[in-house]
């Protein structure tokens, strides 16, 4: 058998091994990407559910009840100090001290 035929045969077999190796690596990477995509989809789904749960828990009806239980209520004009009021009233400090 001529040398060039032997070399071509060797190159073919070598290429086949390289290609097989590349194909294997590609499938491995694809599998990893797929796993990541699945994880991302699952996390996206979890985030959507958590967002909905947070919105449900923070709905105004519930927050208002909790706020009122803490003694909070809407601001009124009686909670505002006039700018002519003594500084101590506005800051809460005692000027005599």
């Amino acid at each position, binding site marked *: 058998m001529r040398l060039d035929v032997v070399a071509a045969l060797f190159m073919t077999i070598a290429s086949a091994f390289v290609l097989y190796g590349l194909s294997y690596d590609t499938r491995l990477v694809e599998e990893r990407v797929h796993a990541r995509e699945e994880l991302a989809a699952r996390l996206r789904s979890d985030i959507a559910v958590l967002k909905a749960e947070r919105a449900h828990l923070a709905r105004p009806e519930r927050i208002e009840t909790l706020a009122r239980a803490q003694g909070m209520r809407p601001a009124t004009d009686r909670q*505002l100090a006039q700018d002519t009021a003594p500084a101590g009233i506005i800051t809460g400090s005692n000027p005599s001290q």
Partner: protein
Amino acid sequence: MYRSIADDQGRKAERDPRAATGRGLRLRMLGVIVGIAAAFAVVSARLVVLAVRDSGDLVIAKADPVATSFARPDMVDRNGRLVATDVALRSLYADPSVVLSRDELVEKVSSVIPDIDGGGLRRALAEPDRRFVWVKRGLTPSVAQRVHDLGVPGLDFKKELRRAYPLGLLAGHVVGGVNADNRGTAGLERFIDRAVGVEGVHGATYTSSAPVTLALDIGVEHTVEDELALAMRSYGAKAAAGIVMDIDSGEVLAAASLPGADPGSPADDSDQERLDRVAGGTYELGSVMKLVTLGMVLEGGTRALDSIVDVREPLMAGSRRIEDEHAAGRPLTVAEVFTHSSNVGAAMLALEAGPERQKAFLESVGLWSPIATEQGPVKAPSVPDRLGRAEEITLAYGHGIAVAPLQFAAAAASLLNGGTRVTPTYLKQAPGTARAGPRVVSEETSRALAQLMRLNVETGTGKRADVPGYEVGGKTGTAEIAIDGRYAEKSVISSFVAAFPMSAPRYLVMVSLFEPKGTAETRGEVLASTNAAPTAGRVIARIAPQLGVMPKASAVAGLE
């Protein structure tokens, strides 16, 4: 012939070894070509057999559709708080070819999901060429687990996107709803399908579209709904509607109609009890219309606020006698016609203006023609075919014309915002966006109307709407409801249209109570001054701080 050529080639090969190798190569190639041709012939023959064979033996399975649901963008309120979102839930389906016993399947599934249509499911499972039957879509995780635990062959799950409304019934009429495929069927959900776009998806693939930002403020919406519910209980009203609108941009910050609608299970359109009374119904709103009448009069320039109108004599509108319920017994100024809510005075002013001007003014403020919002068309106003004397008179104090509260609120905002027409919108506008439409009244007229509204709360029929520090202005309207062609005296719609702060109006609030009853608190009255006005006042007291409106320190005696 071939033999002779072969013999000839054989002889050549004996003479030349290279010719012998070439001959062998050609033979192998011929063999490969024949092999490939044979394979193609087999495939072609098979295709012909399939084509001409009796199609009765062919089975086309009814598989699930390509796009089983639609991915929708989130809906958030003007402050970014979530109103509607997609979540992935399991939907249950059956493969009839794998089901061993239809009766057992239906019986067992019904024990976990009682509301399935057993008969329909049995029929669908009995169809011979069917491979896919929805059993129940959008199961909660716990129900899905219980169905899974049944271990019935032929059942399986598919993850799908389903719409979730974490705020429950809040703003249900405005938000609308979706069908089983997650497509919008009503309200702003339908608008999203039409104008924003949804993506057909197979499985639970979330959309990457940006959220749709609404003009609604869910805090304000909750407050309005809470106060309306309280008013319905306190005054025995059958229904209630409330609107909060940015007076310059027309953004609707709250639109509530009680009894409310659940976006998760959209109401039947024929359900009159749950009708959207903000935009889906038209009503004679009574004396709140005097705001429009006074706007027309002041803009016409023929009357000043202090000019005198002699309202001592009743007016005749056809066979109907028009007189003031609480007559002052003396001539009134134009301003007093408003604060005393004089029907006779308003009618006389309208008659002075004439029918053409009255109709033109109603058209200019947007009360004569239909309007639409992102939610859909607002119920078209009912207006008289022609404006005779009787119609001129009744229109002046809000009878003979029926409009949706939202349409009236937009007209009132147009009169109070400096005089430019606004179109109501449910979408958030960029800060400072002036969506100024055509001018309807001058700034001077607009200021005068704002002063009248404030005066009415300080000294007139709207006293109970006052909230210290917030300079509330408003107008009452108590409209008797026509039943079988006759007005029923104690069956009324009582409304209050308010704005604040009146030194530079920013927000409009409108409250309507449907068929309130007289109570001890109202001394048996059903007048708007006794029920709608205080309701509007309570709404304003709660929403003003949320909207960042600072109270004027009008009566500060010290800190609380």
